[in-house]
């Protein structure tokens, strides 16, 4: 029983990372119609920048500044390259462009920081287990869950109650009408893209405290995040979070009984969802269909 709980909790943590990634992906996907294959790259950028900055800013400072710098790089990428593709209706080009970026980012990370994994340091206080029975629940893991919950709720409030948020939500429904109302949709998409990259970077910093840092770390989190978006439903941010947590926990529970299938089960869940409910758990009908 304890083993099951242990694995389910580990799965939940994985699911939190998937959910953070999927949130960013879903934001960019629904407003800009861009599948960001470089999202794993922005995760790596955020994580490594935070690692480099930790000696100067401390753990908490780097936790915030790393993803912010990642978002800034995302903004530059959006402004110099992705922005040029908005006029082309075919999603192919943004897919290929971000794919190329993903290759470059991974290669540069390997060149700058080395192919060897680096251990990210977490404050000693946070590494203590909170109880002896549930030794795997450390302060750090609770902090991860708390931070993720905070930013997810923050995003919800932003989208629900601020002018920018209303514009972003309106833009996901009908971008042309939003533009016709005098909103600068180029700025809106740029901001939205940067926010998405911030989420990826945050996922990277938090994950590095548990998984360590390697240049391909983004890849292994990117694909499950796609699945999270598909399972949750394209066009639904709540669905992305739900999908991420669901597949994370499912993978964790599978680890208890049949470890070899722990990754495959994620994709099986996706297939089942696609057969039973093609639009995803919380997806709206007719979007992208």
């Amino acid at each position: 029983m304890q083993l099951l709980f242990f694995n389910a909790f580990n799965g939940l943590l994985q699911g939190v990372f998937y959910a953070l990634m999927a949130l960013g992906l879903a934001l960019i996907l629904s407003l800009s119609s861009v599948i960001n294959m470089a999202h794993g790259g922005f995760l790596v950028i955020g994580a490594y920048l935070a690692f480099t900055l930790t000696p100067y800013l401390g753990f908490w400072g780097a936790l915030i500044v790393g993803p912010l710098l990642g978002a800034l790089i995302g903004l530059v990428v959006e402004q110099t390259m992705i922005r040029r593709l908005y006029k082309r209706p075919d999603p192919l080009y943004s897919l290929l462009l971000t794919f190329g970026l993903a290759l470059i980012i991974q290669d540069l990370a390997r060149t700058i920081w080395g192919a060897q994994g680096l251990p990210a340091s977490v404050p000693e206080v946070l590494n203590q287990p909170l109880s002896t029975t549930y030794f795997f629940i450390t302060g750090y893991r609770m902090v991860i869950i708390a931070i993720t919950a905070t930013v997810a709720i923050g995003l919800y409030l932003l989208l629900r109650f601020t002018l920018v948020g209303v514009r972003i939500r309106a833009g996901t429904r009908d971008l042309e009408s939003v533009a016709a109302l005098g909103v600068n949709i180029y700025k809106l998409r740029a901001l939205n893209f940067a926010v998405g990259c911030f989420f990826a970077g945050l996922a990277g910093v938090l994950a590095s405290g548990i998984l360590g840092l390697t240049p391909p770390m983004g890849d292994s989190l990117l694909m499950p995040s796609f699945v999270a978006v598909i399972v949750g439903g394209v066009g639904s941010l709540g669905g992305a979070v739900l999908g991420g947590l669901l597949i994370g926990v499912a993978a964790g529970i599978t680890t208890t009984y049949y470890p070899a299938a722990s990754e495959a089960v994620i994709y099986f869940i996706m297939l089942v969802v696609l057969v039973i409910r093609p639009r995803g758990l919380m997806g709206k009908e007719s979007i992208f269909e």
Partner: protein
Amino acid sequence: MTPAAASPLRRYGILAALWLALITLPWWINRVGGYSALGSKILIYGLATMGLNILFGFTGGLSFGQAAYFGVGAYGAGMTLKYLAPSTPLAILIGTLAGGLAAAILGPLVMRRRGIYFAMITIAIGQLFYFIAVRWDNVTGGEDGLAGFERQPLHLGSYTLPLDQTRFYFLVLLCFTVAVILMRGLLRSPLGHTWVAIRENRRRVEFLGVRTDLYVWASFAAAGLITALAGTLNALLFNFTSPQDLHWILSGDFVMMIVLGGMRNFWGPLLGTAIFVVAQDYLSSITTNWMSFIGLIFIVIVLAFPKGLLGMAERGARAA
């Protein structure tokens, strides 16, 4: 290319030159700094991308997970040789059918989707096969890949033909030719014309009472079958296959090769593949940062040459 590129005579001339170059390849590739296996690899990847282009360029289905079927073909061929029977033709047949079957079974999950959603689902489905190959390691060899099989000599009646590097190239060329004839026939049939119509305006084709999803499904299965054939040959070329042959990075490379050559043209993918494979081969021999250069090629093509090389040549011909 010159304005005359559109004229039929010129077209046949170029095609004849292409086939001549392919048939004589083992005799000249060494002189231009290549090697026989590189020629086979170009032809194999070219077959994969031309097969994918049935779905991608002609039907308009943005498949970003085609490496899955390439890999299923490769593992199918390898496992046939390793566990079932020492026969090269049987390995090719079983691998190809396995890949085609996988595509036919999974096709219904994507056939109603469009654009981005189509791409996302094909990417994710592809990863399923990747993890099966990595984790089912006592059968597939796991991360290290499937080794321990070797392509077997061909038995033609009483005559036995050992497959050295050059002879294997001709076997690849034979498969390539058969597949090209098949694909040409498909694309020139009413089925092929319906595919193009779906690409151009799916809704309008639906208004005509055509079940477009079934046609997309057929395209998906056909593309999977051809790509799987290429996968089997790739496994036989190296006597080895690894999870990298199933990875989404290879899927992305396939799409890039097609776009580079020109996706609206039957031969475009082969041209793009030849350039891409040679560039990759060369870059990885001179720098450890070759991945960055490949990524840079992606970005430059997307931003500056979205129609691909043959697309640009055709547009130039039309404008003149």
